[in-house]
């Protein structure tokens, strides 16, 4: 936050930060517009502004005041950019995996539009990086993946930028919003590297980078508001009084309808403004913010006796939710923590479950807050900081000050519960505990079904994470939660997370190669159900990897049927722990691809797409390396050209990743 408002007095800063902590995203964005409007109007009072906004909505015909301009700018067919041409162009790039960065890029564009700046929004995977040198203002929202990597579909963009061909960016102003997960060692490093590199190439940093943790909403909203303010054309640069009104329109455009004093303005604005606002209103009633309680229709263990894994097939009902999805999309699952873990924690801390604690939007009893609102498994830097202070432990203090690698290793071996046990804090207050915890986050699962085959249902393939740490059994938050949803009236809150990067080709004749390991096979089940329902004629080839044939051949009978029916053209299953009773050499999907290299090459040359889903750390890079070798060998290309072939495939949306 320190980068946010560099010129404020400490008092002002505190006030703003205190205010910011109570705001939700829409409020923050609204206020950004409000302040921008204030700045541009010169001297309105804080109280007058909402009124002005309200009046704007009613007084579209006036045309006399700046505020009125704004309202008319929001009217159908009258784009703000026409009324107030921007002095500089703005491009917003996003690099996304789960869709959060894309969503934020959209919000950023809306906020920019409110400032009278029409932004071009592009996915890094679609963007031609050579065009960077022609940009003027460039705002980037990017996630970080795996061990500090860019999102899979943005790898090409990052590689280009890091390479020698990267252009000089003199005259380009830029800002980076970086998303990540603080439990990883290389937290937000993709954004950090990008930020550094853009500066290195001569760009002018318009706004300091902000790194956002998984509870990114507030930090991101603040950054967006700030960034929007900074790209606003300077007053006088245009001949109309646009910015003021544009600010009002922007407020209307993104605010949710119907609450508070600005309700009227919001409704007006939404009704009058462009597509994004309309979409907001017409979007399903259920969303990430308001997940749908899906009832559990079926919950079976797919893995057979003797498996080293517990992989489940969970069927959820979306009936009545209005939620729809396409094959390739993910389902966000809002989990709850294991009640036994909550109880253990409370016991270790001698805290009462009934003590009220502050949570976003109010108060909850501690027990409920721990179960529903906070991450209480993995520890985070924030928790480490809090706990080091509370416990006064020199060891924790050293860790906090030490390097990230050591911290990450420590987090891997020590959950919140282990901190509590090893570094006791006698007499801790409930509020002190939750201050160090981060909000409980939904988990995304690739949907394993198609609505065409299973109307009103979403199927998930979930590997239940179970292991022992310090002689205590641990379970994954969401997978453990799903695993125990066995009773008839069980429900779980869900929402649909679109995944534009992982779609079936629109052309049903296009061949597809699907490479998946473990639960990575889930979207392919959706693909095949969809292609079967559509009567698609394109060939499809599944390369599936797991540990043991007998127990882990997920959906085996379904694949056999699909093969027999000709929906699936070809299936190459490969099992890593079957050879010589598990003592033999391990083979993985990438090995099988190499063995079938000539065919893979032939399919690619015939226009096939190749999808890769599953493990991001070993499998996806392994597959990439195998593909590179295949392309080099069968295409007669040198390694660099083979890489470029794959990059080209990626740019053409023919090499698609959904890895985690």
């Amino acid at each position, binding site marked *: 936050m320190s980068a946010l408002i560099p010129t404020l007095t400490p008092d002002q800063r505190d006030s703003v930060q205190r205010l910011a902590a109570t705001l939700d995203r829409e409020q923050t964005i609204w206020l950004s517009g409000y302040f921008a409007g204030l700045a541009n109007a010169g001297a309105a009072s804080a109280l007058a502004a909402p009124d002005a906004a309200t009046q704007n909505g009613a007084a579209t015909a006036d045309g006399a005041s700046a505020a009125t301009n704004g309202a008319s700018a929001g009217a159908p067919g009258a784009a703000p950019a026409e009324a107030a041409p921007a002095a500089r162009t703005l491009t917003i790039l996003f690099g996304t995996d789960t869709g959060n960065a894309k969503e934020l890029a959209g919000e950023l564009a809306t906020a920019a539009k409110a400032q009278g700046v029409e932004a071009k929004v592009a996915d890094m995977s679609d963007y031609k990086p050579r065009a960077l040198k022609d940009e003027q203002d460039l705002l980037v929202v990017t996630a970080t993946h795996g061990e500090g990597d860019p999102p899979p579909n943005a790898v090409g963009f990052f590689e280009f930028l890091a390479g020698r061909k990267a252009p000089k960016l003199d005259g380009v102003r830029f800002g980076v919003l970086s998303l990540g997960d603080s439990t990883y060692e290389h937290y937000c490093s993709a954004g950090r590297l990008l930020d550094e590199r853009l500066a290195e190439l001569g760009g002018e940093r318009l706004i300091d980078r902000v790194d956002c943790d998984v509870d990114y909403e507030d930090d991101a909203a603040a950054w967006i508001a700030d960034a929007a303010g900074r790209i606003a054309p300077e007053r006088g640069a245009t001949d109309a009084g646009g910015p003021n009104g544009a600010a009002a329109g922007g407020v209307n455009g993104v605010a949710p309808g119907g609450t508070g004093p600005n309700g009227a303005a919001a409704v007006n604005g939404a009704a009058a403004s462009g597509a994004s606002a309309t979409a907001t209103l017409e979007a399903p009633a259920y969303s990430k913010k308001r997940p749908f309680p899906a009832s559990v229709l079926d919950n079976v263990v797919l893995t057979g006796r003797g498996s080293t894994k517990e992989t489940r097939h969970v069927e959820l009902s979306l009936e009545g939710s209005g939620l729809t999805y396409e094959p390739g999309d993910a389902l966000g699952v809002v989990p709850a923590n294991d009640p036994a873990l909550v109880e253990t924690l409370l016991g270790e801390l001698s805290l009462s479950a009934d003590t009220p604690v502050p949570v976003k939007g109010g108060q909850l009893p501690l027990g409920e807050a721990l179960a529903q609102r906070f991450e209480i498994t993995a520890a985070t830097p924030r928790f480490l900081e809090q706990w080091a202070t509370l416990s006064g432990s020199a060891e924790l203090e050293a860790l906090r000050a030490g390097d990230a690698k050591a911290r990450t290793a420590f987090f891997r071996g020590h959950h919140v519960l282990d901190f509590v046990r090893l570094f006791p804090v006698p007499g801790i207050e409930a509020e002190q505990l939750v201050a160090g915890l981060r909000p409980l986050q939904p988990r995304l699962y690739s949907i394993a079904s198609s609505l065409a085959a299973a109307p009103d249902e979403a199927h998930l393939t979930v590997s239940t994470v179970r292991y022992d740490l310090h002689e205590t059994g641990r379970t994954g938050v969401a997978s453990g939660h799903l695993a125990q949803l066995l009773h008839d009236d069980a429900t779980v809150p869900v929402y649909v997370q679109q995944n534009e990067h992982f779609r079936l080709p629109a052309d049903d004749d296009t061949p597809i190669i699907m490479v998946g390991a473990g639960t990575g096979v889930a979207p392919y089940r959706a693909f095949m159900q969809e292609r079967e329902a559509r009567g698609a004629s394109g060939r499809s080839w599944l390369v599936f990897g797991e540990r043991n044939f007998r127990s882990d051949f997920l959906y085996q*009978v379904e694949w056999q049927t699909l093969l027999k029916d000709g929906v699936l053209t070809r299936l190459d299953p490969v099992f890593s722990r079957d050879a010589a009773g598990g003592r033999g050499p391990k083979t993985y999907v990438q090995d099988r691809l190499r063995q079938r290299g000539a065919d893979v090459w032939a399919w690619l040359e015939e226009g096939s797409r190749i999808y890769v889903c599953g493990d991001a750390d070993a499998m996806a890079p392994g597959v990439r390396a195998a593909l590179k070798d295949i392309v080099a060998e069968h295409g007669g290309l040198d390694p660099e050209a083979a890489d470029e072939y794959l990059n080209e495939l990626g740019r053409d949306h023919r090499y698609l990743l959904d890895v985690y």
Partner: protein
Amino acid sequence: MATKMTKTSPAAAPVEVDRSRDISQPLEKLAPEERLKFNSDYLAGSIAEDLIDEITLAVDENNNKLMKFHGIYQQDDRDQRDERRLQKLEPYYTFMLRGRMPGGVCTPQQWLKMDEIGRTYGNEQFRLTTRQTFQFHYLNRTALRDVMLGLREVGLDSKAACGDVARTVMSGVHPGLSKLHKQVYEQAQIASDHVIHKTSAYEEVWFGEKPAQPRGENEEPFYGKQYMPRKFKIGFAVPPSNDIDIYSQDLGFVAIASRGRLKGFNVVIGGGMGRTDRAPETYPRLGDVIGYIDVEQLLPTIEAVMGVQRDYGDRVTRSHARFKYTIDDKGLDFVTGEIERRLGVPLAPAKAFKFTANGDQLGWTTGDDGLEHFTLFIENGRVINRPGHPLMDGLKAIAETEKCVFRLTPNQSVILSDIAPVDRPAIEALLAEHAITNTPQKGRSALRLNSMACVAMPTCALAMAESERYLPDLITRIEGLLEKNGLTEEPITIRMTGCPNGCARPYIAEIALTGRAPGKYNLYLGGGFHGERLNKMVRENVGEDVIMEVLDDTLARYAQERQPGERFGDFVIRAGFVAEVKEGRHFND
């Protein structure tokens, strides 16, 4: 090693008989299995392709049928069938492989190989069968070629252990008559090698050996492309033991000796156990003694008998295709006449012989050659280590001494035979060391020692009820009745199968149970103690309570009313519990 069997087409049969269902008919009029065999390239099918199919550990239906001729059945773990269906996994397919071991004679090296295969691929066990051979369960399809190679290393194969051919040839194992046994066993071996199918498909499929020339008309000089109508079982008995149940064989030879020299055989034809519930046209049948031949006539006789069945057997309805039905359909006189016509000479009148039992004489015996033999009861033939009873380890240790030959008995037991007296203490020490005795774990009644059960659940696809996993416990309960009535030492035969097909030869036991549904059995009483008479069903489709009730009643009456030396199976007929079955075709009356 033997002369080639040749296909002698019958020149004008002397009597006009119905030929509308036999091999003289065009393929399209016959059962689908006939077309499958005909088009299989002499049993090769596409087995080799299925063996490397990566999306399943099963083989397709047709190849499964063909693999039976190679000694292999596909099975699945029925305990897991339902749960795996819900898991969207295919059934837990495994394979049963049955070896060919004429007369059940097994060298220590062969025993060690079976032990090794069982431990490596067969769930750490193997099984001795009611036809004196060994079988492995739980084999993965991916292990089959390795198993086949292992068997070949020690001179074994699995040809024709199943399928529409002459099965592994049985031979009685009377340890007291070692010299005679040896001569009979040699004949059994010759017979087995003679009747075995010759197709090069076996070597091609399992060992990847391409045949020198494509398989053509001469591939199977005797069988031709369609092989037999159904399985064909041959056995040799050495009186007074009828351990091989000669009356249950399609073709049986009763050894006739003079002063310890084998002279010839009485010929018995038309036995068979299999039947189908609620299908009265199917029934078990005991063989008929049709005459005597000299030893030299053995192979021509086998060819003549099998030739009649090959040419006249029913190839339209498989449940009616066994030799026993051919005989009852065409008449015993016609069949005997046709055999004699093919032999070119009439059969001599049968010689006198006497059987006394069909069980094994357990424990130590000294043979007429001065060698020692130990007959070991193995419950249901299962060679396995159990807690406190390392049977598999013990027999392996004994095999490693190479001081005995193993003889598998038709009652699923094993004889450690041909032990020099000087070596006996070493064998006895190993038996003791591994707690191997003829006192079974669960009880020591003579009933248990005369019990047999088929495998049934969880591997057999045909089983409708438990058998091997259940009979030992049921016997424990029956032992309560025996003790109450002072019958613990009384040998009574009891056999159980999971279906009506009769793998444990149930229809000639004094007490028999055949499965109908989980926990439900048909109960039969009145079989002959030495296999000379079929039993009769007394209760249909009943549970353990009814079974125990009937046995309680009949065993109590037997204890009180039996005459000296009277067998239980004879008593229940005399006392009127069941009617005597004089001929198979009246079994269902």
